């Protein structure tokens, strides 16, 4: 693609850089570039506009006849007649692509702009107005990227204003807008500025064209047709009511998961909750007014609505007057009003009688869609998080999700659905549940947290509104068929795919007689501090990374830094697993977790010698083993508890979903920050307990972003993270110096930073192209040990080459016995295997054939 578009990329780049020189601002140059390319696209569009116009014309001419053909019950006749009609108009379905010509026209410019702006180093760190860095996502709205949202709103508005669009075209435009949102969400701000400007210019053109359009009425006068706007609003209101009702449910599910009370503490939650409830209530009230009949039920409904509205207005007004009601705070006011409005809207819906509607599908199909659609993400979760779902929790997991779907359906039917069919409510409830359960997936994909819900608002809007515009039996059945197929695919793939996160229960290790013979003469505290991704000095040198700061800290605190050390596992879990089992055997992630959480030879040998184990490891490194292996350690921090899963499964499930990971041990809506763990680590050091084995895995500096493509500023990002790691390292070592100077401190990296090549696993690289420096970058690790007695250590550490040599050497040191050095594994690394490449062998800097 880049090769084909190279001329256009080159032209755009020249134009952009020239404009920047003239204007003096990269941001403004982007806007001007956007203006110029919009003009070019408009001109080109003028040349090709006849093709979509022809498509629209022929569709309008054939439409009445196609409609008549559809009434024929015989499918063969229908096909023959359709063929005949197409022949008559010299038409073939492939010509439908003509309507997309304007889009195809834009794509080369978008692709070229993307490639041009991605590879332009000059934009790194350049700010424009409120945007801090044009080469990165904007993160303007409390961490949310605002520009993609603006772009989506502009696109949707353009679709709504385009008069030649049928409801089907509008729905398609909504979906395309949603897809662009997902695909461009994490793109560089520069691209978003450019592309959003393009869309704004197009919107302005559409508005100007619309202004000049007029409809001639029968009496010959002309003007804007207000009736069509009213009709559009009237069609949208019932759908919007359902939308707000579902959003209210979304917040109810969240509030249930709060650790205390039922009030959101953060304005990022209670304000949107209030808005959703107010929207639901307002439209319900509007419906009530329109359907008013002088019956008792309506009288009650109207009275309740009126009274509640009055209370809401008075209460809100009072809370906003300073000093008048000093004890009332906004969070409680907003939360309370939201509940009031939501429940009153619900009650109003119950009191309004439903209209009798013809149901497009029978009840069994409705139930099927409610069950099947939400199961798609559920099955996917179950496959990748199977160690959490053991025993009856497996069944409970699915039951709870079905219950959420059923509850959503009930709410829609009873309070918000009286103008829509039950089938429509079933489909919307199923999609809502699917999106809710998929939220961790979506947020992980968009690198989002659960603090702000605007992503869910947008995704639900883009999904529900088009469904409301086109609602038919055929669409319902198609949704059922496709979702059934997806579910089947996920279930079948679970049987055949080898999953890294398959649970595997691993056999509990039992110390052999030989291992029981390992007896220590001294038992200082042992601290194993893993600084994720920190490499050895060679890698620092080869990747042009600053080593001086690290060297200084290690020297200042008396660490012995071993040269050219590396690990036998290229990822955190298999590296640490091999280290704690001092082995080079093949190991996958789940086994790594099992070992890291205490089922390791190291831990058992130490405990056999009277050590107490204290693991400061987060969920990624332990999984459910943090609960099942509780007998293998004295402490796990952050603390885990299995009791929550038994008594309040639904609450825990909601917390897990809304926090973005399937943790069945959570107690709060927001998980403990890493900073809390690091503070606790220092506290543990200060406790000065004896014979303790403390393990902590710190996330910094970490490694590349693992996308399979290096960012232009990959090294700079990593150096920034290294600074954070060095600060923590300094704090750790100072605490050790002050409180536990006689301990053994092991400071290591678990793997390399992977800043070269493709910044990941070199998947597309041939074996012969992989050089030693690339492998060093991935497995070269820092190993630095602070020995209480350096002279003693020298007797045993001469042959320390890999991470996996560390503990046999420590055992020999503690027992003052070189025999245990025999447990050091071979120094040959085998790994970096891909589906298209066998393993790479590496031995002390040499690639093996």
């Amino acid at each position, binding site marked *: *693609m880049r090769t084909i578009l190279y001329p256009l990329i080159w032209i755009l780049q020249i134009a952009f850089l020239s404009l920047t020189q003239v204007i003096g601002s990269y941001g403004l140059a982007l806007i001007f570039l956007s203006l110029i390319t919009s003009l070019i696209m408009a001109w080109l569009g003028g040349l090709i506009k006849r093709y979509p116009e*022809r498509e629209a*014309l022929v569709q309008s*001419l054939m439409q009445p*006849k196609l409609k008549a053909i559809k009434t024929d019950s015989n499918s*063969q*006749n229908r*096909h*023959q007649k359709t063929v*005949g009609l197409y022949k*008559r*108009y*010299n038409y073939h*379905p*492939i010509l*439908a*692509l003509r309507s*997309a010509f304007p*889009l*195809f026209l834009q*794509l080369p410019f*978008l*692709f070229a702009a*993307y490639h041009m702006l991605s590879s332009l180093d000059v934009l790194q760190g350049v700010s424009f107005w409120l945007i801090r860095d044009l080469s990165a996502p904007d993160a303007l709205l409390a961490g949310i990227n605002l520009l993609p949202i603006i772009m989506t709103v502009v696109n949707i508005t353009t679709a709504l204003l385009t008069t030649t669009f049928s409801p089907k075209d509008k*729905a398609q435009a909504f*979906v*395309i807008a*949603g*897809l*662009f949102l*997902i*695909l*461009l969400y994490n*793109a560089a701000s520069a*691209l978003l500025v450019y592309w959003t400007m393009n869309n704004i210019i197009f919107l302005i053109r559409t508005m100007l064209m619309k202004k000049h359009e007029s409809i001639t009425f029968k009496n010959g006068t002309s003007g804007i047709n207000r009736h069509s706007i009213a009709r559009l609003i009237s069609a949208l209101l019932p759908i919007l009511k359902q939308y707000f009702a579902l959003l209210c449910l979304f917040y109810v599910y969240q509030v249930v998961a709060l650790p205390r009370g039922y009030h959101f503490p953060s304005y990022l939650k209670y304000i949107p909750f209030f808005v959703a409830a107010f929207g639901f209530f307002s439209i319900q009230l509007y419906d009530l007014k329109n359907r008013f009949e002088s019956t008792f039920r309506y009288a009650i409904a109207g009275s309740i609505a009126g009274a509640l509205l009055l209370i809401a207005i008075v209460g809100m007004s009072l809370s906003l007057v300073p000093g008048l009601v000093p004890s009332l705070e906004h969070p409680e006011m907003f939360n309370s009003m939201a509940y009031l409005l939501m429940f009153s809207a619900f009650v109003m819906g119950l009191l309004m009688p439903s209209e009798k509607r013809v149901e497009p599908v029978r009840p069994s199909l409705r139930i099927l869609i409610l069950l099947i659609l939400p199961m*798609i*993400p559920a099955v*996917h979760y179950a496959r*990748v998080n199977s160690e959490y779902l053991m025993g009856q929790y497996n069944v409970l997991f699915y039951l709870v999700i079905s219950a959420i779907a059923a509850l959503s359906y009930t709410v829609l039917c009873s309070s918000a659905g009286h103008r829509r069919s039950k089938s429509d409510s079933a489909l919307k409830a199923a999609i809502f549940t*699917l999106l809710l359960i*998929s939220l*961790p*997936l*979506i947020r*992980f*994909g968009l690198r989002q947290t659960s603090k702000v819900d605007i992503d869910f608002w947008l995704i639900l809007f883009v*999904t529900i509104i*088009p*469904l409301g515009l086109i609602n038919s039996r055929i669409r319902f059945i198609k*949704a059922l068929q*496709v979702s059934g197929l*997806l579910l089947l695919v996920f279930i079948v793939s679970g049987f055949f795919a080898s*999953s890294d*996160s398959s649970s595997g229960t691993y056999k509990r290790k039992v110390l052999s007689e030989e291992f029981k013979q390992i007896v220590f003469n001294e038992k200082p505290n042992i601290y194993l501090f893993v600084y994720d991704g920190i490499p050895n000095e060679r890698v620092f040198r080869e990747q042009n990374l600053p080593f001086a700061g690290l060297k200084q800290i290690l020297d200042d605190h008396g660490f012995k830094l071993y040269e050219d050390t590396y690990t036998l596992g290229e990822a955190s879990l298999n590296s640490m697993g091999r280290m704690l089992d001092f082995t080079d055997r093949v190991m996958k992630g789940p086994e790594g977790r099992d070992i890291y959480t205490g089922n390791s030879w190291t831990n058992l040998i130490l405990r056999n010698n009277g050590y107490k184990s204290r693991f400061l490891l987060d969920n990624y490194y332990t999984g459910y083993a943090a609960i099942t292996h509780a007998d293998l350690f004295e402490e796990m921090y952050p603390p885990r508890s299995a009791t929550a899963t038994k008594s309040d499964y639904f609450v825990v499930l909601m917390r897990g979903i809304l926090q973005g990971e399937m943790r069945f041990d959570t107690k709060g809506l927001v998980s403990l920050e890493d900073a809390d763990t690091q503070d606790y680590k220092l506290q543990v050091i200060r406790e000065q307990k004896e014979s303790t084995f403390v393990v902590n895995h710190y996330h910094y500096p970490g490694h590349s*972003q*693992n*996308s*399979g*493509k290096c960012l232009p500023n990959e090294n700079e990002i990593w150096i920034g993270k290294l600074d954070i790691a060095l600060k923590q390292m300094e704090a750790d070592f100072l605490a050790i110096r002050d409180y536990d100077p006689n301990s053994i401190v092991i400071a290591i990296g678990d793997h390399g930073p992977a800043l070269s090549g493709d910044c*990941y696993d070199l998947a597309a690289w041939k074996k012969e192209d992989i050089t030693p420096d690339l492998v060093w970058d991935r497995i070269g690790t820092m190993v630095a040990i602070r020995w209480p007695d350096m002279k003693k250590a020298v007797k045993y550490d001469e042959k320390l080459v890999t991470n996996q040599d560390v503990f046999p050497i420590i055992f020999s040191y503690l027992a003052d016995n070189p025999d245990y050095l025999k447990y050091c594994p071979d120094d040959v690394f085998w790994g970096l295997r891909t589906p298209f490449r066998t393993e790479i062998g590496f031995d002390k800097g040499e690639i093996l054939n």
Partner: protein
Amino acid sequence: MINIILLIAFLLINPVCAYAYLDPGSGAVLINLLIAGVAALLFSLKGVFLRLIGKKSKATAKVAKQDITMGILSEGRQYFATFEPIVKALITHQIHFYYYTLDIEDELLEIDSEYMVSRFLGYGNIGYAKAGSLKVANLICTTPNIGCKGYPIQKSPHVQNLIHVFHSINDLSMYRKGSLDYYDSVFMVGDFQAKSIRDLELKRSLKEKKLVSLGLPYLDTYSKAPNITEAQDNRSKTVLVASSWGSKGLFANYSIDFIRKLTEAGFRVIARPHPQSYLSEKKFIEDIERQVSKLSNAEWDRDISPTKSMQRADIMISDTSSIRFDFAFIYQRPVLSLELGLDDMPGFEREDMTELWMDKAAHNIGIVLSKSDTDDIIRYVNEVTKEYKPETIIAYRNRVISNYANAGDAIARYVQTSVIGEDR
């Protein structure tokens, strides 16, 4: 479609493999390509499948058995009035035929009949190329100059009998040179056209065409329009000024002074250009429109169909346009013909013609005025409106036009007995 998007979205999002590198923008193309491509593929496969199992609908089976040797080629909806009577008559007489058009909005495409196989040939040069390769033995067409060098539509080598049907009451004088040179037959409006056709054949050593007087089809349609007039008492007379387009038009040859005089004299004037003027001389005609609109008692008629204006008018002033005869023959009202001095019309058939039917015929439906006569236009208008006799016009019409108001049926019967009958 939403489900397809969900499928794509779910396949792209996977927490285990979170390093998806996506090419942005490709999703929208995927949607369109996917939908259009899959739809087209499924549609085509369905047809193949049905053909394989050998089932056809009764309608297509029946038509396939017929050897259709009759066809009509229309340039577009502007000739709707010419072809509609013929099409309806052919259907009534159960004659299978093809209807080809170069206009997708041709209303005749909407007719569903087991006897009629309609086809839109395509836009621009594609349509012309297909028109030049039609596979039908007999083809009725109203377009002159088919087959001439440089003309976009060529005569198909498969057409053995290219038949011309007229869309106006006139001899060949207002056609461009070579108008009927490649035609094999002519359905004449009346016998008066035969002389000019034969003269040209002689002059150019062309093969003799088969000439048959069958009438003017569009009169079938217009003659059925209600013949209403506005109330007679105390109302001013309405004059319809109908111009041809281009150099043949009275607007191009006369100023609007005579129109001003008419309005000042109390006449209501409807000025109507030829629809072709809006395509060929837009700026000029809009300028004329502006001038006319400033006059009191004057209005401008933009309708493609002249029917309404003709219904309201008491008298017509025109040039060499055949609309004069439409007006006179349908509404039996007089016409003032303005001379244009078009003796020199290079490139038109009249260059090779010795006498022009129009010149004589104009005197049978009203009077002919020269430029100088327009100074006294009011007098002439008053005289003609007092003195015209509808019976005279009707008698003249019956002499000139064959099968008045029934040309379509006559053509269909002729085709049935003499054209297709001969083929059989």
